[in-house]
């Protein structure tokens, strides 16, 4: 039995939208960060699905690059979160408002 390729892409879209929702509505900065990872994963699924449709390996190479960038982003982002926590003693984004208008 085969799986329509659109199912993969729709699953990817739903996961992406859930990631955006988490980004908008979560208040904990670490959970917000994890929502971003969820969005990246959703896009990776799209890349792999398109790679399958077009019979091109470039899509998988791009997923590899996305993963590398995600790893770098996680390292720097979590370091920033640690510094923020040290200075403010809170991880709630409502308390981190210096650069908000």
């Amino acid at each position, binding site marked *: *039995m*085969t*799986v*329509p*390729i*659109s199912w*993969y*892409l*729709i*699953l990817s879209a739903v*996961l992406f*939208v*859930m*990631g955006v*929702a*988490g980004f*908008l*509505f*979560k*208040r*904990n900065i*670490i*959970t917000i960060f*994890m*929502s971003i*990872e*969820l969005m990246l*994963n959703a896009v*990776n*699924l799209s890349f*792999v*699905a398109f*790679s*399958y*449709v077009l*019979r091109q*390996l*470039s899509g*998988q*190479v791009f*997923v*590899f*690059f996305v*993963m*590398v960038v995600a*790893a*770098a*982003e*996680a*390292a*720097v982002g*979590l*370091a*920033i979160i*640690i*510094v923020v*926590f040290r200075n403010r003693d809170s*991880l*709630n984004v*409502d308390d981190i408002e210096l650069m908000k208008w």
Partner: protein
Amino acid sequence: MDKVLFLIFAGIALGAAVNLLRSRHPIHSALSLIGVMGALAVLYLLLGAEFIAAVQVIVYAGAIMVLFVFTIMLLNVGAEVPTSGSMLARYLGIPLLALFLLQLVRLLLGQYPPDQASSFGTFVGPTEKIGRLLFTQYLLPFEVTSVLILVAVMGAVVLARRKP
């Protein structure tokens, strides 16, 4: 068989993602995210991306999520305090998100009719070919990412160091 596996693991991915959004404690969210990543690794395998599936488990579910869990433990994060949140996000965000999802689904269903289907084993991306691509066509980006990783490591060390 493909369909059954897809439905099972897509269900796991969606359920874990819902749990990520629902749970108040970051450690529960982190464990749900590991569930999403593991389920996605199976879907990558179904699409013939062996290398990506392995890397997904090793790098994403392994290394990156360990970093997250480590930070959560280090900071001893408690449960999230529910606040009212942003009005703009609630009254503009939800409708726009729903619209975005609807448009995306409509577009994808139009672009990829159900007869365009995937079956396990018809297209396989062997690791050897990906390695060859990385070291020929994508050599420059590959080398640049090594610089990016180096800068990220130094940045993380500099940022997280306790100032004397």
